[in-house]
């Protein structure tokens, strides 16, 4: 992992929301449409300031709902604009219908999600229930660990979403409050560097009803029809195309991440998964988002004690980096999957579903257990992480799993 040190880079103090807003500004977004919701609000506030102070040339639509916010972005993207929105929790849930429409229309909208719990009861704090619900919506999903990565990922997200081979909407999840409202060191690239990196919006070609190969955008010169009634004779084929774009995205995400590392000096694993001290690890946890930072701290402490502990952070949950997961865990003997959301009535949380499913093909079949944690912003302390590793050690020692799925940090 290449880390630029403080002295080499221009670090400023930004919270996650501010970092996202700044990144979107530097990407020269054409249309931003958004609606305020805690803990995303700072993003729209900052962006409004940029617009009102003339620091960015963007049409900013303050919509009357998140449903319209995403619709505006989708429609603007269909005209050929670069678009951005941000939301959280109930706002994302209200967008649900349009999330599918956006990916189905292959509109490369970029969205920041300040991850927050879903009601009821109402709760403004972090968990991943909001975006996990949308894992099958056809959006690329990136979960970030800190404000720096939030900044870097938004910039990468435009390249990923707008890549002609992909042309899919991309969601960047940053943990509500833990990142959205936490001031951290963020190294910021010069405007010009970012602009050069993201470049102009790319638009793929399609065959229209006049038999011409035309840009995929609403252009009076080259008319196209987007969003028709698609029945059993072709709908399936269109969904297969979406799946193909997702599959291609995996490699392109890695390439774009490498390219970005060249201009920034910053890397997050291979861009899809970020392994921490996993090479010779026997015990591993798997998680998404800001919790990974706390886990890393504990891993360091454990390593100092001679415990072979490691961490695998999934950065792109969609597309799921199946090969990376298999490779990263090939020597691990016991795995704890941490889920910051609950799949009620299911067998564990959504990340657990995926990981255990992937590991079925591993041949090594490590022990895999699941911890549901941190719902509604419940803190995941170092002590709790330590408890998980202690459980893993016990499983390894005894070869027995008492409970495959547990809630941690909960009063029983």
């Amino acid at each position, binding site marked *: 992992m290449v*880390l630029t040190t*403080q*002295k080499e880079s221009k*670090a*400023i*103090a930004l*919270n996650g929301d501010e970092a996202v807003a700044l990144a979107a500004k530097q990407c020269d977004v054409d249309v931003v449409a958004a609606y305020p919701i805690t803990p995303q609000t700072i993003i729209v506030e900052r962006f409004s300031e940029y617009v009102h102070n003339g620091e960015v040339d963007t049409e900013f639509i303050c919509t009357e709902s998140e449903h319209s916010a995403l619709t505006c972005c989708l429609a603007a993207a269909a005209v050929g604009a670069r678009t951005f929105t941000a939301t959280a929790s109930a706002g994302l849930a209200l967008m649900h219908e349009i999330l599918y429409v956006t990916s189905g229309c292959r509109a490369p909208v970029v969205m920041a999600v300040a991850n927050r719990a879903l009601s009821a009861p109402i709760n*403004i*704090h972090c968990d991943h229930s909001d975006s996990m619900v949308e894992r099958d919506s056809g959006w690329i999903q990136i979960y970030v*660990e*800190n404000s720096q990565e939030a900044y870097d990922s938004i910039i990468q997200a435009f390249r990923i979403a707008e890549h002609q081979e992909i042309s899919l909407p991309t969601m960047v999840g940053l*943990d509500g*409050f*833990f*990142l959205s*409202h*936490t*001031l*951290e*060191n963020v190294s910021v690239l010069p405007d010009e560097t970012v602009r050069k990196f993201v470049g102009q919006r790319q638009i793929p070609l399609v065959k229209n009803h006049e038999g011409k190969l035309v840009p995929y955008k609403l252009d009076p010169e080259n008319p196209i029809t987007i969003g028709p009634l698609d029945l059993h004779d072709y709908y399936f084929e269109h969904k297969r195309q979406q799946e193909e774009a997702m599959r291609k995205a995996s490699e392109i995400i890695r390439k774009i991440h490498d390219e970005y590392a060249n201009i920034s000096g910053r890397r997050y694993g291979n861009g899809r998964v970020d392994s921490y001290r996993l090479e010779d690890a*026997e*015990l591993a946890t798997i998680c998404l988002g*800001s*919790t*990974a*930072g*706390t886990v*890393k*701290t504990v891993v*360091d*402490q*454990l390593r*100092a*004690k*001679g*415990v072979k502990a490691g961490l695998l952070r999934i950065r792109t949950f969609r597309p799921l980096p199946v090969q990376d997961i298999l490779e990263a865990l090939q020597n691990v*003997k016991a795995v704890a999957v941490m889920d910051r959301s609950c799949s009620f009535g299911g067998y564990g949380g959504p990340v657990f579903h995926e990981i255990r499913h992937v590991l079925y093909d591993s041949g090594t079949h490590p022990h895999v257990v699941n911890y549901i944690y941190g719902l509604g*912003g419940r*803190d*995941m*302390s*170092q*002590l709790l992480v*330590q408890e998980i*590793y*202690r459980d*893993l*050690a*016990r499983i*390894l*020692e005894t*070869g027995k799993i008492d409970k495959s799925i547990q809630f941690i940090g909960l009063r029983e």
Partner: protein
Amino acid sequence: MRGKHPLSITIIDLEKNKVKKLIEVRWHGRGGQGAWTASEILAKAAILEGKYIQSFPEFGPERMGAPVNSYTRISEEPINLHCSVYNPDIVVVLDPTLLKTVPVTQGLKENGALIVNTKVSPAEIRKKLDLKTGKVWTVPATEIAIRILGRPITNTAMIGAVARATQIVSLESIEKATNKRFPPNLAEKNIPIIKEAYKEARTG
């Protein structure tokens, strides 16, 4: 190989393995008194000195007058932690009335420091809170603020006191961060407050 694992017999002492040179500050104030702003200015001053920082509020619906916390982390190395502060090195109390209702010393490290806005002496505070270890600092922040600003806004004064008590950031960096954070007319008044509090803070 599933042999005996070190973890099965050892309970880790987190304290001993704490990331070196990480300082955690907890700010106590009331909604509207600027505890979050204070934690932010301290963090921004530290970043000017090339340090790694975090600053975050207690994540709750903040309401005017209600007791609120905020936090600052300052470190020589990148900060990975993204959890609450449980054992602060420094506790800062913006409003003396909080001492009666809020357990401000909870989790404070044995060798930590408590910094209180009050007219009374550090010894009296130590006695009142039954605090046996660590350091206690006091500063008459309300008085200073009223004298210079004309209003009892104590957050900037407390930053000055923190700088004096801990020496984690220089007064110069705090001045720079304050100038950046406030519009000129406000910065102009707050900087003398910080300097005055730096001067008047005392320990015992």
